[in-house]
């Protein structure tokens, strides 16, 4: 089994694939054909999913018993694989279990010794299989002398006289393949950690980070435009690989992206425009001291009024007051951020989820 090291995702990312830490219910045929990792032997790849433990149900078609283990050949209709089933301490002591039936004791009297013996016998019976019986095995995949095998961590005989378990299994496994194993899992290493994001989401996060780190209180679009330059550049580079890249120019794309980002930030209330004028100035809601003071004053003053003294001011009341006093363009989302920030500083107190008061 040779594998291209380039095709393997780096081992540090394997744990991100949920299938890695699950017992994969693969067809035995696939277990036999999976390629082994060149980075770490003992890990296998099915459809670029890293796999090392599997869950198998099949008919025993071969068996061999050694002192320490059973070796069962299991056939699920697609392949046959050896399953190494280690005998626990329980199976090794031969005096127990295979011996005589428990001595008859008084019915109705609970005798732990007899019960334990019965349990041991039941377990032994489930571990000792004959050809033709159904075996369920969970364990890790190993390659021993060029032969794939499963080293069982759990194995037991399945009583399935009506084939109900087998039929259910046969119906479940194709679904699992369609839903999980045959879907490729995108493992991308991205320094920023936001690998699976559209350019718009990435750009929005970029601006948010910038605002936070530099404690920006207000900005104009051209102040932040350069921040998005690398994103557009990457996009253009990716697009130039395709022959029919005749879209809008980089500059236009940049402006369009910025416009969308600013719209998202406004919708979320992160920024707002105090005055809608030709000169586009965006205020960062949480950094806008004037706005914070205005809201605090409104709540403090109005909480004293008889109308609001008991429950505090309703959010909508605060909103309309802020719009009158401070700026018409404060959105509900922006106000919510302001209220949250004020509450965090204990400047105001919420009396319900929509009412605030101040002392």
């Amino acid at each position, binding site marked *: 089994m040779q594998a291209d090291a380039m095709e393997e995702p780096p081992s540090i990312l394997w744990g991100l694939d949920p299938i890695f830490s699950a017992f994969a219910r693969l067809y*035995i*045929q*696939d277990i036999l*054909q*999976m390629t082994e990792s060149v980075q770490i032997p003992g890990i296998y790849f*099915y*459809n670029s999913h890293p796999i090392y433990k599997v869950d198998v149900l099949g*008919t025993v*078609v*071969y068996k*061999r018993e050694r002192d320490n283990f059973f*070796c069962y*050949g299991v*056939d*699920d*209709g*697609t*392949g*046959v*694989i*050896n399953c190494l089933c280690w005998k626990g301490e329980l199976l090794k002591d031969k005096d127990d279990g295979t011996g005589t039936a428990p001595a008859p004791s008084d019915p109705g009297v609970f005798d732990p010794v007899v019960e334990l013996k019965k349990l041991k016998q039941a377990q032994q019976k489930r571990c000792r299989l004959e*050809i*033709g019986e159904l075996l369920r095995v969970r364990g890790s995949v190993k390659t021993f*002398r060029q*032969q794939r095998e499963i080293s069982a961590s759990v194995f037991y005989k399945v009583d399935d*006289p*009506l*084939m*109900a378990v087998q*039929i259910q299994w*046969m*119906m479940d*496994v*194709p679904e699992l*393949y*369609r839903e999980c194993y*045959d879907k490729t899992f995108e493992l991308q290493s991205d320094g920023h950690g936001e690998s699976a994001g559209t350019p718009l989401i990435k750009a929005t996060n970029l601006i948010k980070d910038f605002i936070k780190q530099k404690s920006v209180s207000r900005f104009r679009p051209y102040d932040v435009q350069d921040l998005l330059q690398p994103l557009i550049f990457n996009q253009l580079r990716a697009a130039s690989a395709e022959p029919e890249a005749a879209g809008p120019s980089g500059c236009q794309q940049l402006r369009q992206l910025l416009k969308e980002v600013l719209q998202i930030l406004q919708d979320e209330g992160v920024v707002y425009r105090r005055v809608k004028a030709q000169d586009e100035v965006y205020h960062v809601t949480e950094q806008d001291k004037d706005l914070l003071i205005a809201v605090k004053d409104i709540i403090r003053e109005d909480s004293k009024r008889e109308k609001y003294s008991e429950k505090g001011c309703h959010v909508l009341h605060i909103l309309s007051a802020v719009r009158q006093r401070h700026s018409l363009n404060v959105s509900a989302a922006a106000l919510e951020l302001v209220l949250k920030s004020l509450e965090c500083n204990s400047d105001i107190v919420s009396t319900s989820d929509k009412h605030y008061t101040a002392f």
Partner: protein
Amino acid sequence: MTMLPPHAVFHFPWELNCLGEGKSVRTFGRLSCYEADTSRATLSCQHASKEHHVFVRTSFVEPFNPIIGAQYLVLGETETYEGFGVMICARVLSCVDGVNIALLQKAIEGQRSFFREREHTDGGVAQPAEAI
């Protein structure tokens, strides 16, 4: 090094005649007749208003408890005899009376269509189930 037998693919009883010699198969049917002296059993099944028979050589699985009229699952290799047809030399013969045959058929069909789908989409990991 262990010598494992080839895997036995599910086949419907009415498909066996066109399989050829030495294929490992598993199939099902009602036990309609058992001759202990010649170690031969016959499984039968209805499909498309026709009665199909599967002949089984039972010498490897004897002694077993024959229940005439019960559903059995057989796993073994096909042998062809001139003027007689296909006989399965059974490695496993188990009574599964009470099995939901319609559901079993559905499960087999579902598995087949999954393999067909996969063969079409990629030639990579997947190989047809028939490859031995």
